[in-house]
């Protein structure tokens, strides 16, 4: 692989079109079918989803309404993640809910589009939506919660300790 192509592949686009969502776009030097498998085959998922940590794929029912549940064994603790599939359209689109055991009841909706850019290149566009942000913003706009910037500054400091 040439250096420039490698750089282009590594370059990720991350934007937040609104407070309600996070959008990540990545181009991989791999055929779309393989990228799809990486998300839907438990044996393959286990090899990358845990970010280098051991990952146990407890459930992965890749169909509309199907459950998924992954448990990540990180050095600082065990984290369970789970949800249900909302849309499964191989090899183009996956949509699912995402919840972390540590913050129960807070549901994120993940939408993934897999675009073929040629025989061996695939773009994945991941848009994650946070359903309750609108309400939160409405509350903040109403001035109910003061000192928000201080909170954010405190949050920045807190997050710096999490890395």
């Amino acid at each position, binding site marked *: 692989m040439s250096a420039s192509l490698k750089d282009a592949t590594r370059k990720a686009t*991350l934007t937040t079109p609104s407070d309600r969502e996070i959008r*990540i776009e990545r181009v991989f030097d791999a055929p779309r079918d393989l990228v799809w498998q990486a998300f839907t085959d438990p044996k393959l998922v286990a090899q990358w989803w845990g970010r280098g940590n051991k990952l146990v794929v407890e459930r992965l029912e890749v169909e509309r309404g199907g459950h998924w549940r992954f448990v990540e064994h990180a050095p*600082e603790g065990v984290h369970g993640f789970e949800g249900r599939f909302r849309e499964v359209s191989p090899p183009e689109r996956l949509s699912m809910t995402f919840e972390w055991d540590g913050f129960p009841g807070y549901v994120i909706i993940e939408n993934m589009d897999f675009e073929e850019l040629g025989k061996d290149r695939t773009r994945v566009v991941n848009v994650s939506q946070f359903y309750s942000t609108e309400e939160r913003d409405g509350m*903040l706009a109403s001035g109910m*919660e003061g000192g928000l910037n201080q*909170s*954010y500054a405190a*949050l920045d400091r807190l*997050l710096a300790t*999490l890395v």
Partner: protein
Amino acid sequence: MVQYSIRLDSSFAALSDATRRGILERLGRGSASISDLAGSFEMTLTGIKKHVRVLEDARLVTTAKVGRVRTCSLGPRRLEDEQAWIAKYQRMLEERYDHLERFLRRTQRQERTDA
């Protein structure tokens, strides 16, 4: 990670009850009065007030009384935790895609070797 866990752990006591989790979920969709909540959860006003008090003590809920109506909303703690969780989620997502990229590269290399 440690500080974050402690903050969340102290929320867990308040969140250990299904009704209280339900109240938070309900307030996530918008503010509600004590009597709205009592109606939704088929509980007495006194019962709901007790739950709201626990959530209030944990700063998960705030209440304000206007006239005879006490209105409950999500509290500052919940908002901060939510923000922290979103930021953590975003970082995890990026890391996950980094690892997917490495995985695909490894797999492709393997395939070329096999071929």
